[in-house]
């Protein structure tokens, strides 16, 4: 049997982290191929329900990344997002979602190496806890 490979959804803000992902490409920084990137305008756009839905749809890990504090293209979107993320991550972990599945980072569009390093880190961390089994929406468990 082939080794299990996790599927990880990454929500990246258009201006910083998505740019870093692009720059990592330009710089040919190799990364594990487990991450599927969804571009959002700003980490402030990140509704916690996207994290829930990603887990529900069987993502083994979720990674959200935005601009560094103070560098938000929209001035302060990431500051608001940071509070949401902190509380929501804590809540998910509190009900038993493994902390290794949820990742947050600030990566500027120049930090291609950081992007590649965090990508690697995220994948390794998810691999450590194995395939996701919680909060996955399967055929309704009813009669």
């Amino acid at each position, binding site marked *: 049997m082939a080794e299990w*490979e996790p*599927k990880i*959804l990454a929500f990246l803000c*258009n201006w910083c982290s*998505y*740019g870093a*992902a*692009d*720059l*990592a*490409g*330009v*710089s*040919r*920084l*190799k*990364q594990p*191929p487990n991450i*599927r*990137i*969804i*571009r*959002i*305008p*700003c980490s*402030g*756009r*990140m*509704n*916690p*329900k*996207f994290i829930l*839905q*990603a887990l529900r*749809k069987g*993502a083994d890990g979720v990674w959200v990344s935005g601009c560094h504090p103070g560098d938000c*293209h*929209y*001035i*302060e*979107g990431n500051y*608001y*997002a940071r509070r*949401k993320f902190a509380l929501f991550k804590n809540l998910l972990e509190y009900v038993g979602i493994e902390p290794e599945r949820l990742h947050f980072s600030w990566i*500027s*569009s*120049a*930090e*291609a*190496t*950081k992007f*590649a390093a965090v990508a690697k880190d995220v994948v390794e961390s998810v691999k450590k806890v194995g395939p996701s089994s919680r909060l996955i929406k399967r055929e309704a468990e009813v009669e």
Partner: protein
Amino acid sequence: MADWMEQVREEARKLLQEGYDGVLGFRFRAGQIGPYLFRTPEEIDHLEVDTRIPTQMPPLFSQIQEGVPKYNLAKTLRLILRKRPDMRIGAVLRGCEVRAIRALQEKGEIDASNLKIINLVCPPEQAAICNCEKPSYDVFKCTGCWSCIEACPEDAITRINVCPILSPSEYNEGLSYRKAIYIKYPQGVPLKAVRDAETCLKITGKLDCKGCERVCQAEAIFHDDEEKIEELNVGSVILAPGFRSFDPKAFDVYLYSNHPNVITSLEFERLLAASGPTMGHVVRLSDHKEPKKIAWFQCVGSRDINRCDNGYCSAVCCMYAIKQAVIAKEHVGKDLDTAIFFMDMRTHGKDFERYYEKAREEHGVRFIRSRVHSVEVVSGTDQLEITYVTDDGSVSQERFDLVVLSVGLEITDEIRDLAKRIGVELNQNGFCNFSAFKPVATNRPGVYVCGAFQGPKDIPQSVMEASAAAADAGALLSPVRGSLIKEREFPPQVNVVNEPPRVGVFICHCGINIAGMVDVQAVKDFAKTLPYVEYVADNLYTCSQDTQALMREAIKEHNLNRVVVAACTPRTHEPLFQETLEAAGLNKYLFEMANIRNQDSWVHDDPEAATKKAKDLVRMAVAKAALLKPLDEPELSVNQEALVVGGGVAGMTAAKSLADQGFKVHLVERSSRLGGAALKLNSAWTGEKVEDFVRELVSDVEAHPNISIYLSSEIESVDGFVGNFRTVIKNGAGSKEINHGVAILAVGGKEYKPTEYGYGTDPRILTHLEMDELLKNGDARIKDAKCVVFIQCVGSREPERPYCSRVCCTHTLVSALEIKEKNPECSVFVLYRDMRSYGEREELYQKAREKGVIFIRFDRDRKPIVSSENGSIKIEVVDHVLQRPVALTPDLLVLASAIVPGDFEKIAQFFKVPLNEDGFFVEAHAKLRPVDFATDGVYVCGLAHYPKSIDESIAQAKAAAARAVTVLSKETVRFAGTVAVTDQRLCSSCGTCVNICPFSAPSFNDKGKAEVNPALCKGCGLCVASCRSGAIQLLGFDDAEIFSMIECA
């Protein structure tokens, strides 16, 4: 050694004689070492084996990271074997390279069955440098870590493998290398390769190398391209040639040329950079180990007329040194010891003083007031010992691992030459001559100047001046504005609403960039099976002109109503494809990209995984595309008139600049006369008298046909948004509504009225402006004074006002010099904390000392004590040199009191713009948008932004005008379609969106429901994600679209 080398060459010759097609090894060519495929036994004489210390290489080239050897031949070999599997070749390889080849073979990347390896055993020194545990060919088992290949600097900086030339990279300050054909830096826009005509073998005619031409599938390289001279007819020229950082080679006492661990601040900047040669890893160059102690020497090449001719202050070094120290601590860790050796700490910029305090108090950066005498090598170590004299006169010594020279800014001979050709006068330092009242004008009409060429300055100041120069040029050229514009025309948009989605998918090979890793055919076949996909094509370069034509045809022929391009990145290419959609009559928002190059083929090395990922990305993009809706870009007419609030120098300058550029301006002033704070000023730091200038400016403004002036007027209300503001102003006579497209806030600042140092108790204790009054009037007290004392930082750099007021040190110098001029016998004392005579103002400081002004430094916790004794003022202060108390009894005491903001609360609320903790306005971006607000169409200039000198205020005012013209010059303003919209039925009126939007786009309508003004919305989606009831959606990124991508990921 020689025997051993010869032995290897013999092996290689043998192979060629046996009929091998070539042997890969190293060869010196054109002064460079690089990989070479030796074809004849004769050539083998040039085969180099020991490449350990390539002296021609930049210092970091050979060992970028620990554990990574020098140039790795495995990469070259991989290319050759993949391209020419038929060739039988040999290769001279070290153990690490052999392991890499084995790994490549195991992965099925190459077929090495025709490869003959000549093994080299690395000498122990090399193995030590590389941290190699397996220098011998006996150990072939590759760990698969790939670090040998991955971290190769070639990979990190450029992908142009074929070029054999290596040169120090300018971008990395020579700390890494580049090829003769290279990409300047990875963030470059557009991201294009350039050739270095000086080193390219083909161009220089050294060799008929066409490596790059052969591999370029886009056929972009023309070797016979020639330099052309073009002639342009222009109405105005703006000079922004910049500066060079000072080269400290001449300072032999600092060992810059002799020791690898003495580097310049710019080199250190590259070490800190994530995109730099060490990827942000701070190392000392001698052994590539992390330093434990770093010292910065300030004023290297600045404020120095002994060792160089740069008497001026470079204005930026103090701040960047602090920043570097803080970031270095972040990178290396809190334990890193950082020390900055300085003379005066000049953190006069907005928010800089806070940063300085934080660096000292929170980050523990050490600040040592001393100019270091010399640097010596600690023998037997890589450490450096520095000797310096401290404040109290004692000599100290300390050892550091790394010394960073904070080099200054200077003008090059090329720039002087350019100025000469253009006919622009320079001052003795090589900076462009200017007047404080025309800060961006040169002596030649129509030629303007900005940036460090005008004088040493930081980014915000440069950006302001750049806009100011544009404003001046714009005023000059306003009669011909818009005459060269060509409008693009598009066919009418097809209505696709209610049509089932018909998605066209275009998959790009990007030459081999995508196709080399991703199985494009497989992705294409897969895309065909996806719902709503009607058409799939693959293209060699989807961005090429002819593909755009094909795309337009396909849209028409297959009646496509959504388009997905799977290629590079939307960040660079979305606009191009959107234009193609528009040309085909489709709304540009019916487009989605799958990033299968930057985020896929370029970052993976497993073709199968990369192909799988590409399929997923295409499926996600198609799923989103099916849900895309055509979006409107609302267009509103622009009221081409401006409102300028504040009739001081900044406000009048902005108003006049706009009026000169042909726009109507409403200038509102609260007081009964124009002029503002400048009415009280004596002279600018350049020595020019302010009074005459202000008088002239006022009369120009009053006479200008485009300017309406409202004196004794205040703003009562503001409504609307960029292009369409409605402001009600009120004066004694009543209210009036003004319609305008933009607003410039130039509401000024004022002098702080001190409560300290006995101010107000004695008429001989004055503020700066009061002293200016005496100077202007030729007051007898100045002629009669025997002693005048200035006390600096009155009300500034204090806990309750923790910013530097920027202008007071210079103001003191100007006043002190004038006193000395009018009354040379008068003794003048300046009690200061740091003299912040930044830039060329430093010369005033120098001059003041020459004229006998005495400077005594005090600390914040040992302030001068002012008292009254027998009817005279008595000042006691501890002399910093003598370390003894000094008592002064001046005839006049001048307090360099702070500049404080006015009460801006109301106006900030009117225009929905923020104030900082100190009460000044907060610009959209401290560095890049220094006069803009986050709110479109509103700009700031003058003291309301931060304390600044009159020339800086004028430059900023012109900058604000230039920014305003970007709106005013258009008849209509178009807003993006990707904005938030509310569903009134779902709105709970909770007010979260109204409260959090940084752009004040949502507001309550008359039914109490939230509505988003598309003219203000920037499309960030913050409100959308914060709306609990799901009443707001972000067009183009709505929940359904994002959910569809999540589902298909």
